[in-house]
């Protein structure tokens, strides 16, 4: 067997692929954060809690109404997105012109409330969500066994990520969004309803988080605290990519998944820390992140 640093090459291929799949989750989550920060300048610390809500919502829909996975994949993000719209409309908007740090504190408080309420209802042991019938089983790639569901995760995540990027960077709606953040007054003068645009954007960012949550439900234990530790990792991804950079968030998410995957082979203890090491190095060399514009 061919070896690299004492690890069989075949194992390494497998780890790279798995890293990429994890990276797809990071990409989805950090994309939502980047969209929200880029357009609203809100540091959304509730993102992890909203991701959890997406997964939990899918479980509840299945257990109470028998809603299947494919419907939940759309319905759950829509429901959580509506919840997000309420959050923006009634809470976040009130501090829109204050310092960023207040949005951080406010969303952190919201996250504590959401997680606390659901912990009291559902406990912390977690709930199970079955893998949809059509995606059970897997394929032997020679170097590893790849469950179909993981393959689906990466396809779905990448499609959504690049769809979002296309919408923001290449369509008319996207250009309104970008212009609205550059100069809201001017846009308003052109007859565009900027506050509505902002609300919808927040809702969309939240939907992305909830979508990631539904994708995660069948493979991770669904519990009210599932998003709590993910949050700072995803934040690190956004910062490394460059705050507000859409493409930066997606590519960094995928890249960090791979780096983390490799660390799990060579120095597993450090696999949850390596991302912060990368962040220090990147910010030293490129102060605004990999894809960020220097202020």
């Amino acid at each position: 067997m061919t070896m690299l640093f004492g690890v069989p090459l075949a194992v390494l291929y497998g780890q790279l692929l798995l890293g990429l799949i994890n990276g797809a989750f990071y990409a989805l989550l950090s994309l939502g954060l980047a969209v929200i920060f880029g357009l609203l300048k809100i540091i959304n610390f509730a993102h992890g809690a909203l991701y959890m809500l997406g997964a939990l919502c899918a479980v509840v829909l299945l257990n109470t109404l028998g809603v299947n996975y494919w419907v939940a994949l759309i319905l759950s993000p829509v429901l959580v997105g509506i919840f997000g719209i309420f959050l923006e409309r009634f809470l976040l908007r009130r501090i829109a012109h204050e310092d960023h740090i207040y949005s951080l504190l406010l969303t952190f408080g919201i996250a504590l409330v959401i997680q606390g309420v659901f912990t009291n209802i559902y406990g912390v042991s977690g709930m199970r969500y079955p893998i949809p019938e059509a995606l059970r089983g897997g394929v032997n790639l020679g170097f590893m066994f790849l469950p179909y569901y993981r393959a689906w995760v990466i396809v779905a995540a990448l499609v959504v990520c690049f769809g979002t990027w296309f919408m923001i960077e290449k369509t008319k709606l996207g250009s309104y969004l970008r212009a609205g953040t550059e100069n809201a007054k001017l846009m308003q003068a052109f007859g565009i309803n900027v506050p509505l645009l902002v609300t919808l954007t927040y809702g969309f960012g939240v939907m992305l988080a909830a979508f990631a949550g539904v994708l995660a439900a069948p493979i991770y234990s669904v519990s009210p605290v599932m998003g709590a530790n993910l949050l700072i990792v995803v934040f690190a991804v956004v910062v490394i990519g460059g705050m507000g950079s859409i493409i930066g968030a997606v590519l960094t998410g995928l890249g960090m998944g791979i780096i983390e995957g490799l660390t799990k082979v060579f120095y597993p203890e450090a696999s949850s820390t390596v991302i912060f090491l990368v962040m220090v190095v990147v910010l030293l060399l490129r102060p605004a992140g990999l894809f960020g514009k220097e202020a």
Partner: protein
Amino acid sequence: MSQSLSSVAVHNVGLEQQRRSDRRRLIFQLVLLALALAAPFVIYPVFLMKVLCFALFAVAFNLLLGYVGLLSFGHAAFLSTGGYTTGYLLTTYSGLTPELGILAGTATATMLGLVFGLIAIRRQGIYFAMITLALAQLVFFFYVQSDFTRGEDGLHGIPRGNLFGVISLQDNLSMYYFVLAIFVLGFALVQRTINSPFGYVLKAIKENEARTTSLGYNTDHYKLVAFVISAALAGLAGSVKTIVFQLASLTDAHWHMSGEVVLMTLLGGVGTLLGPVIGAAFVVSLEHQLAQGPLGDWVNVILGGIFVICVLAFRAGIVGEVQKFMKKNFN
């Protein structure tokens, strides 16, 4: 000639006002000190010591956020470094007196602050917050992996020892007055710093860094010094806390701790001297009360709710809002 005279007069009036408000503040602080001296006879001293440790931590943090405008999200690293150093030394070398242990802990945290500062100080806003967070995570990893911290179990049974080798700190009351003395020293240091020419430059950096640079100040240098002072005081708070509770654990190194000090400071009032003290007292008592009350399992919900309300309604924090109210009604 007359012009310059009148400006001197104006200057004198300003000085007079300044002096009067200084005197008022001094009296106010003496009253507070008297209250603090009497407090352990009414309130459980260990609880008071916990409040004082976190208050010192928050005061240190506020020096950066409130007076330089730098949001550090990695202050847990200094708190825990102070704690672990002191704890490790006092358990390993039985002859060591507590004040030496505290000095060593503070010194180590200061060095770490210098390292953090040199790396982070050139970054601004959210990037500064994130790079301090990243560095603190690396420190956390180091403590998880090191044997001397005993990992998740933590260091236990750290002796309180005899202050200067003479005064036993085993008694809660003498321990309390020792902690109070340290807190007053730390608080005075911060007050002195922000009311010195050095502090005025810091405030100028907060208002407009570019202009301060154009006035010929090396702003990075000023920011670095402020960062190191803040780290040192945070380390001091950690060292003292370790002796009070006789343990050092990973809780202090976790990023939640960095978040907690932000909350204390914001709740109390950023950029006010007393704000972080009140904020720390508020958060510590709230957590204490809630954890023991019938609403034990709703702690997080209630805390979260309070933060939401504070941000929406009392953004200036407790002390900030009181100051606003006083200004409106009594001036």
